[in-house]
């Protein structure tokens, strides 16, 4: 599955999302649940703002010295007997993994969730060599069995499917005969996947954070599939995008703490696994052979630009979980494995504006994403900057948006900018405003407002409106 997934046309994807009442129901309750859990557990940490500041500082420092830390990381991995391959492109990365698989005469590969390998379409590349590739994360497994249905959320990829649909997938494809109870389904999958693990020749994982000082790869999971993927097959290949690195174990603590709380509202997930090189000679479990593939695939083009902080992202999906647009259109509408606000920022950077010019407009600019982000990425400012580029430089935007951009793009600091933006937006949006509601918004907002009136950003800022709506619990 490549970076871009699903229907090519943004409007078609949005319409499909809007038509899907079930999907919206699940997305909404998942958003609520994840957000409430995140809030509760970040409050317990004491000074959440200080944590965010620390997170941001660590990410900024690491990215500014990325070459140094990657060099240190690769030296340490090699010292421990692991092999490191630096891949500039997806093709180079895929070619390396295929070569390892050929050398090992592998037949079956088990994987634990990895977004960068999705971005690279690694599974397709391996399958074209006749290899069997099994995704072992429950959510990813469901999607894979269902003819590679695309993921719809960063941490909960099968969010758009209900139990009955999931049951049907397994009944059709795997002969499952039990109920649609989540426990029964899980039991069944446990049995199926155990067999796969015991048979597999190679395990492929992503990497949440690599620790430069010791050459360690860490995996943050709840299911423990990452642990089986790395403990059972004789060969392990970890694929990391180049920015997923911290200087030392002390920063690993901070980033993992921020990730677990922001992603799922847990203090720590059930398993945090830190792997350093292959197993030692007298160990009986763990891989004999360890490979680390470090992937650029367009990321270096983001370095040194105004968008550099987008690379600070730790893929927690906190921004997704607060986004009112995501709530209405669902993850598939973004047409990218990276969805929600970070997807709207990152996808055009990795894949160009041409096919993704609508994505930066899939935002109300309410700044809830920016406030939620544990590493302080100014997401809504990045979206504004994208719009500016699209309307001014690329000349791809429709007229009203051009006009709107002049209003939004006055380059103030975030809260000021937002206040200004939302004040001015009232004027810009006036042609579409009836009373206090926008009933027929421009561009991609059109489909949404067709379905449900959008509050006009005039008298009440969107985030205040959103907060109030949440409190009154009268959403819908």
């Amino acid at each position, binding site marked *: 599955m490549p970076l871009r997934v699903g229907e090519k046309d943004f409007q078609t994807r949005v319409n499909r999302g809007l038509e899907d009442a079930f999907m919206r129901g699940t997305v909404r309750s998942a958003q609520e649940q994840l957000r409430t859990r995140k809030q509760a557990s970040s409050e317990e940490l004491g000074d959440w703002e200080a944590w965010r500041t620390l997170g941001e500082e660590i990410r900024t420092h690491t990215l500014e010295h990325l070459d140094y830390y990657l060099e240190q990381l690769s030296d340490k991995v090699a010292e421990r007997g692991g*092999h490191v391959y*630096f891949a500039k492109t997806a093709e180079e990365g895929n070619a390396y993994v295929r070569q390892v698989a050929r050398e090992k005469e592998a037949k079956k590969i088990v994987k634990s969730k990895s977004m960068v390998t999705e971005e690279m379409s690694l599974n397709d590349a391996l399958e074209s060599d006749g290899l069997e590739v099994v995704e072992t994360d429950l959510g990813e497994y469901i999607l894979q069995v269902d003819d590679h249905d695309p993921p719809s959320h960063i941490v909960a990829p099968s969010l758009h499917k209900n139990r009955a649909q999931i049951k049907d997938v397994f009944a059709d494809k795997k002969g499952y005969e039990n109920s649609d109870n989540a426990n029964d389904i899980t039991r069944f999958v446990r049995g199926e996947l155990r067999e796969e693990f015991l048979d597999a020749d190679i395990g492929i994982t992503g990497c949440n954070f690599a620790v430069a000082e010791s050459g360690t790869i860490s995996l943050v999971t709840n299911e423990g599939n990452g642990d089986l993927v790395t403990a059972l097959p004789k060969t392990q290949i970890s694929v990391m995008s180049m920015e997923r690195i911290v200087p030392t174990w002390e920063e690993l603590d901070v980033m993992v703490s921020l990730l677990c709380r922001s992603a799922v509202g847990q203090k720590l997930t059930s398993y945090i696994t830190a792997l350093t090189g292959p197993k030692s000679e007298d160990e009986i479990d763990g891989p004999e052979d360890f490979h680390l593939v470090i992937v650029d695939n367009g990321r270096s083009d983001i370095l040194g630009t105004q968008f550099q902080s987008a690379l600070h992202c730790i893929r927690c999906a906190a921004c997704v979980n607060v986004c009112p647009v995501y709530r209405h259109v669902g993850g598939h509408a973004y047409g990218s494995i990276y969805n929600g606000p970070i997807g709207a920022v990152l996808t055009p950077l990795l894949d160009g504006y041409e096919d993704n010019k609508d994505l930066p407009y899939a935002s109300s600019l309410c700044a809830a994403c920016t406030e939620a982000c544990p590493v302080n990425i100014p997401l809504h400012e990045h979206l504004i900057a994208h719009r500016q580029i699209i309307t001014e430089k690329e000349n791809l935007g429709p007229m009203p948006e051009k006009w709107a951009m002049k209003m939004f793009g006055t380059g103030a600091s975030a809260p000021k900018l937002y206040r200004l933006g939302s004040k001015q937006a009232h004027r810009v949006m006036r042609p579409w405003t009836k009373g206090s509601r926008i009933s027929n918004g421009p561009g991609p907002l059109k489909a949404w407002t067709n379905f449900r009136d959008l509050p006009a950003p005039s008298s009440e800022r969107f985030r205040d409106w959103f907060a109030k709506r949440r409190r009154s619990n009268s959403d819908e």
Partner: protein
Amino acid sequence: MSRGTIQGREDFLNLISEKIGRPRSEHVERPEWQAQPQWDVFADENTDQLLERFKAQCDNIHTKVVETNADGLREAVAETIGGYESESVIMWDDDRLERAGLDEGFRSQMHTLGVETFVWDTLKGEDSIEFAERAGVGITYSDMTLAESGTVVLLNSPEKGRLVNLLPENYIAVIPRSSIVPRMTQATRRIHERVQNGEDIPSQIHFVSGPSNSADIEMSLVVGVHGPVRATYIILGDV
């Protein structure tokens, strides 16, 4: 251990430094971070308070807690195994477990009760893995214990197999009271210090907080999708 290979590094890193707009970084000092809130979390709590915190958190992560002392450990473990209705047990080849009472004598007691026991054995290779796969219970000892998250930290080694706490359907961690620290911060600092002193760290370090779980089906929590379905922590008071 022979050194591994590194391919494609120079061009890759040169491109990064070029994009950042400066020459390659040759030496970087990690800065003193301005904010360090992690050290304040439960900083003034004593072991008793941390233990209370730990136990409360175990409720959240669906993990049973049993408290005992050196005399009661065998019984507590036996009862837990009985409660799981398991007929086979695998455990780390760890002196600390032996000394705490899970020794030869304990194993023969188990045998009379019809429970087969197996100690992870580097000489037996694949047999150890096969036994772990069919064992009803896996037992390990906690190297460090994190109050905040209900976590046992397992520093793996040849004698302390990775699969012991993963493959069996039930998991027991023996936790010495003295191993408790406030949170991950203290554990990662210790590991960081080992790295700084030039020591090798284990090939796997495992932070385990309760049983395996997933919320991938309609966000409802299910346990045991890959690893253990149930977990019990047995806290061993100091003698």
